[in-house]
């Protein structure tokens, strides 16, 4: 006969009360206190410099902004002394150049980062990393020269081909280029947002690539080996393990590059021929950016014109600031640092 047995749970005495966390009082002697005050003063100095720049720009820009109000964002002309000025067209130009740059830089930087971390033989890895970092150190004026004298003559054929065959897509159409004439008009394709964007892409590519590479090198080895053990090919392992793991870093690196692309001055200034029209035709000659507007306009500007330039600069700064903070939020929230149990 079966007897039913009960599971006995021994009654333990409940803990009388939670132990109070010990409070730790740090007592610093005079030496350390003086040292800390000294350190804090460097922090205050840096903070003061940075805040001074920001506040000064804001105060100076206020004159111009209070004159125009919201229409500052939509007006396309730039004639501050006649009271008609706004960043509608230059802001659009800045964003267009940056977007072209990012669209070109993303595949290259992602591919380079994956190539370095997953495919290149280990003994070449260090050299490749150094070379990509070196690209980030080359001065932007050198990239500008390269774009103006080397890349632009070579790419016109490609621009014309794209505009001939894909001209029905609005951003690829070009006005003033008789593509069927015997003597094609090459100057319709020079100094375009597309060419400036390609040059800026070369500049932001290494920045994006090094952030992505950093994240890819943190992919847990156990998860990759697991994928291989289940029969994945190398690309399969990249697709199911590396890319999902690194998603935050990829987005963050891209945004970081975008922030840099928005603020780039001298290469854009060298290549583009300024125009104040609102246009999305990236292959066509002419375009503008906020920073080249400042670089071209500061010399002749009256004090009010300078205030207007500061307002434009402030708008640019606000944009790069937002982009950078989004970038760092993504990088911080990516799974990097978390490891699998394998």
């Amino acid at each position, binding site marked *: 006969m079966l007897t039913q047995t009960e599971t006995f749970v021994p009654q333990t005495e409940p803990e009388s009360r939670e132990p109070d966390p010990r409070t730790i009082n740090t007592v610093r002697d005079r030496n350390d206190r003086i040292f800390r005050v000294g350190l804090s003063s460097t*922090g205050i100095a840096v903070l003061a410099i940075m805040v001074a720049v920001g506040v000064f720009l804001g105060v100076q820009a206020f004159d111009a902004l209070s004159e125009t109000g919201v229409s500052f964002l939509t007006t396309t002309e730039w004639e501050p002394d006649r009271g008609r000025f706004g960043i509608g067209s230059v802001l659009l130009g800045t964003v267009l150049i940056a977007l072209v740059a990012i669209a070109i830089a993303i595949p290259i930087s992602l591919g380079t980062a994956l190539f370095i971390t997953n495919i290149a033989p280990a003994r070449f890895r260090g050299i490749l990393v150094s070379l990509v970092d*070196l690209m980030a150190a080359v001065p932007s004026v050198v990239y500008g020269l390269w774009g*103006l004298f080397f890349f632009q003559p070579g790419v016109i054929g490609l621009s014309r081909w794209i505009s001939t065959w894909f001209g029905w897509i609005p951003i690829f159409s070009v006005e003033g280029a008789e593509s069927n004439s015997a003597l094609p008009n090459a100057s319709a394709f020079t100094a375009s947002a597309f060419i400036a964007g390609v040059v800026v892409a070369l500049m932001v590519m290494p920045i994006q690539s090094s952030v992505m590479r950093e994240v890819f090198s943190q992919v847990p080895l156990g998860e990759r080996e697991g994928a291989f053990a289940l029969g994945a090919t190398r690309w399969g392992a990249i697709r199911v393990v590396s890319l999902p793991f690194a998603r935050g870093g990829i987005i963050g690196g891209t945004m970081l590059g975008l922030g840099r692309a928005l603020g780039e001055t001298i290469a854009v200034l060298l290549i583009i021929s300024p125009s104040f029209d609102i246009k999305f035709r990236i292959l066509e000659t002419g375009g503008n950016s906020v920073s080249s507007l400042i670089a071209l306009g500061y010399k002749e500007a009256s004090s009010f014109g300078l205030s207007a330039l500061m307002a434009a600069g402030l708008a640019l700064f606000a944009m790069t600031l937002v982009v950078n903070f989004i970038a760092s939020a993504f990088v911080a929230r990516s799974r990097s640092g978390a490891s699998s149990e394998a």
Partner: protein
Amino acid sequence: MTILEKSDSVGDQVGNVESQRPKTTLPQISPIALPPSNTRRIAGISREDLGNILGAGASAIAVTYLLFGLLAPLQGSVGFVVVAFFIFLGLYALLVSLTNPSPIVVDKVMTAILAASGALALAALASVVAFTLWRGRDALVTWNLYTEDMSEAGPADPLSVGGIQHSIIGTLIIIGIAIVLTVPLGIACAVFLNETRGRFNRLVRTVVDAMSALPSILAGLFIFATFILILGLPRSGLAAALAVSIMMLPIIIRSADVVIRLVPGNLREASASLGAPERRTVWHVVLPTARPGLGTAVILGVARGIGETAPVLLTSGFASTLNVNPLRDPMVSLPLSVFEFVQSPQPALIARGFATAAVLMVLVLVLFAVARLIGGRPAGQLSSRQRKRAESRSLRDLKRIEPDIETEQS
């Protein structure tokens, strides 16, 4: 004999003869029953791959040549490379699919694309460096480029007259002032960020992060508006150095912060437990441990600062004569000279611009190489000379503390 028969015979033995001790028998597996096992290759290039790549490459170039020369109205070197690459990918996929299942075809094609993007990045770097050196070659080999300024040389003068000595010296002065201003402040601020905790610390960190997003032209515009317009000071090397400093400071703080964060906490604790005050801990433990990384941080910041054109454009003014006084009169830097030279339609001036760009680039590359050399070592690892110095220092301390102790001099 198969496994089945063997186990049957074991069962017979156990069932029929109970008195006999049962023997443990191992099933004999014949080698034929095993499937042949091949180790899967994940990385590396086999001979078949190499043949596929070469074959696809050769036919892609041939087909593109046909398209560009004879069949279709295509032209331009960039277009040639683009078209050839896509034809290569298609042919390569076709070749691989003759002998392999589809996941391997995808893998091979993706590997080719990734390798090509790496190669594209390197080719871009190589072409930028080579093109600049090539276009500047005529001016680079003339000695007067390095020893004269442009005061005597007109725009149409040949390359044998005039040079960029004034901008080389100007760059060195501007960056020297910027280094003096930013490096001590930047490293002290990075120490501050690491050695203290609290709300103020977080605020400083956030603001520094924000300022690293400042477009460089705004740093120039700030100095232009305050220094030159409001204070009425002339355009000078000092103003340019200040603008460059505003741009470099966040870069140096952020990279030094990352390096100091890597100093192991137990080193700090060991120092504190020996009774060292925080000042000595930072000076004798934290900073020496992070020294190689700090060197890299500084040099990378300096390389960025040297190459910046936009802030200098607004603040330094332009001159074609040598000026060694940063307090007054315009002072040009290398990137600004490049910018001014290539604005001109004169071929001689453009050649000078390329030579100037080449000098600037070589300067940055040398700085970068130096940064790699000292930064190659992880924090705390010393070179043999540094280790000897550290040993002799601790020996001296030991003798000071215990004068009677016998020490072996090595």
